[in-house]
């Protein structure tokens, strides 16, 4: 069932990468517990700037990786290291697909 709604106005801004998202913001956006993001950092999947977790700042690219990793782990029943590996392979496939497309697949 789909209902129409009034047109809403919103303006997005693109903060220059690296963009500064806090640990709490990343957790909320991914709907995951803090420990999950901390583990991703420990696993080397995310590399925020800042020394301790309270000062960590993440980019939107980190946020994207964290979301994919959390979904892979949740939906496919794989552990964090497995999700990290899948994530890296998926990114590699994506880069190769782009390359193929650039070289001309017509």
């Amino acid at each position: 069932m789909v209902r129409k709604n009034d047109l809403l106005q919103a303006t997005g801004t693109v903060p220059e990468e690296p963009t500064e998202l806090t640990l709490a913001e990343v957790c909320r956006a991914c709907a995951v517990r803090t420990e999950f993001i901390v583990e991703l950092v420990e696993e080397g999947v995310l590399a925020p700037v800042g020394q301790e977790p309270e000062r960590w700042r993440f980019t939107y690219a980190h946020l994207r990786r964290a979301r994919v990793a959390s979904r892979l782990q949740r939906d496919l029943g794989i552990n964090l290291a497995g999700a990290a590996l899948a994530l890296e392979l998926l990114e590699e496939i994506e880069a190769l697909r782009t390359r193929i497309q650039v070289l001309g697949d017509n």
Partner: protein
Amino acid sequence: MEFKDYYRIVGVPRDATADDIKRAYRALARKHHPDVSKDPQAEARFKELGEAYAVLKDPVKRAAYDRLGADWKEGQEFRPPPDWNTGFEAPGGGFSPGEMADFSDFFEALFGGGFTGRGSRASFHAQGEDRHAKVLIDLEDAYHGATRTITLQVPEVDGQGRASLRERRLNVTFPRGIHAGRVLRLAGQGSPGLGQGQAGDLYLEVEFRRHPRYRVEERDVYLDLPVAPWEAALGASVKVPTPSGMVELKVPAGSTASSKLRLRGRGIPGSTPGDLYVVLQIVLPPADDDAARAFYRDMAGKFGAFNPRAKLGG
């Protein structure tokens, strides 16, 4: 509503064991996971699979579903029998209204009963969920910036706890320099909060629509440029379309097919703008009349020593 054949969706017989069901589900989940599969149907397929598994993995829900009988066919018009779930302890429940929005009307009619009246507790406050969506824009938008109206399907739960999808239109300004993979954050445009809780944020991930002319890799843009053999051999000045307008390009003498000419900084703008790569394609004039054929024969004579297959040892 239409009947859903959960056994067919998971691909197991009706007498499959719990282990069989789990194995079959996992294999299909890996295949159709929207982060893994490029199939545009993957997301719908994955949701359907999740719904089927939510029922079949739960012994109570599965038993209740089995009691509908084995004669129903996928897609058949279906109304739950009035007493279908009597004798079971709460076959519904265990799902948030947000999750329920992803499930079919069929699922909701059978298992969605447990949510009536939920969310009406006035003293409860919570921040709304953040939401995520992908949005397609044109490459030209990245060069000039653009304001576009986008349409989102938003799950919504009414006062009776029923979940539905609502269409929501939003005007979004995409700044110059945006590129695929970038995420825009629209504060307060996610799910509304409960009670006095704040609304969540909306994250929009940008992708480019496939362009008939240009190909994009990060901030670099590629264009195939057809040239005549004499333009490549002798050099020429040709007009080239770029997303930021026509430019005059010097093709150097002695260029070969697939030569890449770089127009520095003519890629997607930014603090370090990308480059535009022009890839030469040598196009032969057709030999479709006597004069043209005579000219090609003449060329064959003049270039008698030329062997295009020299590298093949021919």
